[in-house]
């Protein structure tokens, strides 16, 4: 399945500066593997040690957050547009997740 992946600024150095790349993947997890195979460093930036998306990383498939779908197992189809989006938070107060 050929899908387009929109890369946020902080990860573009891994992809040679590209804002968008195309990969073949049948699921979100396979997409992370495909990105990693092409551009080392993606897996550790996106997934924790158990293979789950990190808390402050969001992946959208055609505007739907994969957390509302099947997470890393969310299937992909030809022509899907996948966006990697940083979750941004903070503030003057104490740290709570």
């Amino acid at each position, binding site marked *: 399945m050929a899908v387009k992946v929109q890369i*946020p*600024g*902080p*990860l*573009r*150095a891994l992809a040679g500066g590209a*804002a968008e790349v195309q990969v073949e993947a049948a699921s979100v997890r396979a997409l992370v593997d495909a990105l990693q195979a092409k551009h080392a460093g993606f897996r550790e*930036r996106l997934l924790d040690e158990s293979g789950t998306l*990190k*808390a*402050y*990383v*969001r992946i*959208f498939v055609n*505007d739907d*957050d994969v957390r509302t779908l099947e997470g890393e197992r969310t299937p992909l189809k030809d022509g899907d547009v996948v*966006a*990697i*989006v*940083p*979750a*941004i*938070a*903070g*503030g*003057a*107060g*104490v*740290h*709570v997740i």
Partner: protein
Amino acid sequence: MKMPREQAEAMLAHARDGYPFEVCGVLLGRAGERRVERIARVANREQESPRVRYAIAPEDQLRVQRECRGQGLEIVGYYHSHPDHPARPSETDRRIAAEGLSDGVIHVVVGVAGGTEATPTAWVFRDGAQAFEPEPLEIDA
């Protein structure tokens, strides 16, 4: 980084208007340039402690990105306010940036004293240092 005066004024007005709660928004510019061309307010999605915490929904970022793509602009950074707290990143800001995707991203922190005096400072997060580094903030005439 550089920023047009009217955009800086709009950001500071947002921070004053939102007092005593934290406000937040995105900084829009062109990839690879240290220049903010526009700001866009977004809702603070923090539910429990919006006086001392902020959260920007990824859905809001996608919406803003889509709206400005035709103009060649994209998200190059973020701003948020610290009501009655210093105009510099907190330990909370640092820890969350370190856990997320923040390398090279601009963050402007606006300190708001008493709801009237708003002071902006600019920073860039560096993964290597796991810290924010000060970034000179030049406001154009």
